[in-house]
């Protein structure tokens, strides 16, 4: 009974928040609702004896991933914060496709699986130490090769992300010339000039108070 209450609560939260992620027009609210989805899915994991995964889900998805997404929104969202509405044809096509997929998957999922009760020793281990110990033993014995490959993948993804998102030299040159023209137009010092000034002030060559007063 308790399991049922918790399950329905997490289901209601996750489905509502997922609908919010998809249909909310402001992308910031979508990203924040995504945290709620991830947390409630972590609750679903706990219900399924996956306590380590629930913690990992909270740390990796609900904290790490959402922060990356929010940074992405910050970098790209100066104008396009709101999604423009779609054409009705695309809306219709997507709804038909999603309904079709939903019905297909629900039909597939009704396969009569042979549910097996777990052995007593496993239940006892889970009661005592959770799933973490069993998972660790598996990861470092049977699945050690994919585990190491996953670490290489993470390294490659990190390097790739930095290279992709890095400013190229051409971009940097363009940017500084833009800032230069801006400073000529408005008569205000550029960022580079400001930082040079601060550096000089920290070396004791210029007194910053005097500069700001003048």
């Amino acid at each position, binding site marked *: 009974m308790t399991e*049922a209450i918790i399950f329905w609560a997490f289901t209601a939260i996750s489905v509502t928040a997922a609908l919010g992620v998809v249909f909310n027009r402001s*992308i910031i609210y979508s990203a924040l609702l995504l945290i709620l989805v991830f947390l409630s899915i972590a609750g679903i994991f706990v219900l399924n004896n996956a306590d380590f995964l629930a913690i990992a889900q909270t740390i990796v998805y609900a904290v790490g*991933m959402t922060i990356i997404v929010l940074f992405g929104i910050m970098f790209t969202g100066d104008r396009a914060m709101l999604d423009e509405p779609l054409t009705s044809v695309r809306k219709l096509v997507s709804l038909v496709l999603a309904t079709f997929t939903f019905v297909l998957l629900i039909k597939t999922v009704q396969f009569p699986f*042979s549910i097996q009760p*777990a052995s007593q020793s496993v239940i006892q281990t889970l009661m005592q130490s959770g799933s973490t110990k069993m998972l660790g033993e598996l990861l470092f014995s049977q699945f050690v090769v994919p585990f190491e490959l996953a670490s290489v993948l*993470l390294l490659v993804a990190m390097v*790739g992300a930095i290279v992709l998102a890095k400013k190229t030299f051409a*971009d940097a040159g363009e940017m500084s010339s833009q800032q230069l023209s801006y400073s000529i137009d408005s008569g205000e010092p550029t960022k580079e000039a400001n930082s040079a000034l601060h550096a000089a002030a920290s070396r004791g060559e210029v007194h910053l108070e005097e500069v700001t007063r003048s």
Partner: protein
Amino acid sequence: MIQTGVDPMNLVTHIGLYHYLALAVLLFSIGLVGLITSRNMIRVLMCLELMLNAVNINFVAFNNYLHLDVMAGQVFSIFILTVSAAEAAVGLAVVIALYRMRSSVDIERYTVLKG
């Protein structure tokens, strides 16, 4: 368990494997709708994460109800988590690089392949 002729109150109070599978299907479909309909690239990535999470629910539920002795389903979930973290990082880097090129993240404006 969902069977024909089962009384509906039992379906509400007794949670089984099929409940989790149905939840996963629901979340996957919602993510699919978002994937197709959203015009902002970052929202597309978010919906992708949603779908991957739905798959994770499937793995964990199957592991719990069918093979709790082996725990391989949870290991698979960990790998999915790793891959999706890498995918999100690279995906957002691509979005930022594209934004620098066109100063827009609207998918409708990227029609280079249209000819």
